[in-house]
């Protein structure tokens, strides 16, 4: 895997200014609000992004999700790192 965004288990991430996670009550969707656009996030992504508080490390988030969903840690880690790397590359998240 080529990891250019350098998101690792030790990383502590949060939303960059001008971006936030929000539940759209009217459409019952999770969205990320961003400058002049909003995009829908689905599947496991809202569960992951809800845990970003600027304090917990990526590793802590992986562990918490593995516990919550009783799933193998390495499966969760792969999903979490892929999502967080992608959003970091897009400057939605930062360390």
């Amino acid at each position, binding site marked *: 895997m080529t990891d250019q965004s350098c998101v690792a288990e030790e990383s502590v991430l949060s939303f960059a200014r001008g971006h936030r996670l*929000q539940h759209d009550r009217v459409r019952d969707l999770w969205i990320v*609000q961003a400058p002049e656009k*909003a995009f829908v996030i689905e599947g496991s992504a809202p569960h992951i992004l809800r845990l970003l508080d600027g304090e917990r490390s990526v590793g802590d988030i992986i562990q918490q999700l593995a516990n919550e969903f009783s799933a193998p840690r390495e499966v969760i880690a792969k999903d979490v790192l892929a999502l967080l790397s992608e959003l970091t590359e897009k400057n939605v998240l930062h360390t």
Partner: protein
Amino acid sequence: MTLPSPPMSLLAELTHRCPLSCPYCSNPLELERKAAELDTVGWRSVLEQAAELGVLQVHFSGGEPMARPDLVELVSLARKLNLYSNLITSGVLLDETKLEALDKAGLDHIQLSFQDVTEAGAERIGGLKGAQARKIEAARLIRASGIPMTLNFVVHRENVARIPEMFALARELGAGRVEIAHTQYYGWGLKNRDALLPSREQLQEATRAVEAERAKGGLSVDYVTPDYHADRPKPCMGGWGQRFVNVTPSGRVLPCHAAEIIPDVAFPNVQDGTLSDIWNCSPLFNMFRGTDWMPEPCRSCERKEQDWGGCRCQALALTGDAANTDPVCSLSPFHDRVEKAVAEASEKPELVYRRF
């Protein structure tokens, strides 16, 4: 009957007043005066109803929205309602104190407009002496505040060659995003079309400059092309009454900011009905919603749910009937009118400036 899906964005045109007089202003030719503007209570209700209806983002615009003394209060309410707030401003009324108040109120993003990179070019379009220096100072203040900033440049024949310098200015000022928007030819822009419409060669050069900048990375670039040179129309507003709602200074509710030119229909006002009723039930919003209204060649076109027949206001302005296919489409029987406009746009008439 199922209700239409709710709007995503609200364009809140707080006022038509503005210190600039750009000849391509998106406001209508008939500008609304201060005495007709909704008061603070009226705008608060618009925001509350918009959030309730399903709007996610509110764009505070004008005119110059900073001419309204209640802007901070409205931004603060938007934040409380979980509406993402964007301020679309010329920056000439911005100072450190005002910016700090907006920041504290929870403003999410600022779109700062520039008319050009040169002082002479900027003053020729905006008509306000010293505006460029004030805008640059505004950009510095915004950058220092940390509020995400998009620089917006409207381009036309006179400044289109300076797109590379526009990107350089955006990078120098630390903007995260730049919008290069070709002038849209409605209202004031249409009045000045022959003076502003770029040639095909200019457009190609502009597109090359945008692509070169995107390839460099590090700056997010939005590019709005002039559809007079296209052969398929744009999906105007993402479809009439589908994603977007505009409220004018006096409270009129429109499917787009140019829609007041549509004849033979009542323009609903938030003072007479709820936003929800207007969005769902008003004749204006249902006039061109979906595909049932479409004539040929749209009706049997496979792209009808991609471009939604293009722009109603452009169809009206160029063919005399808002229910026609947008003449930008090469399948339109009126497409020659667009080609003629392009051919005639080299006579350099004088600019007609926006005024009350």
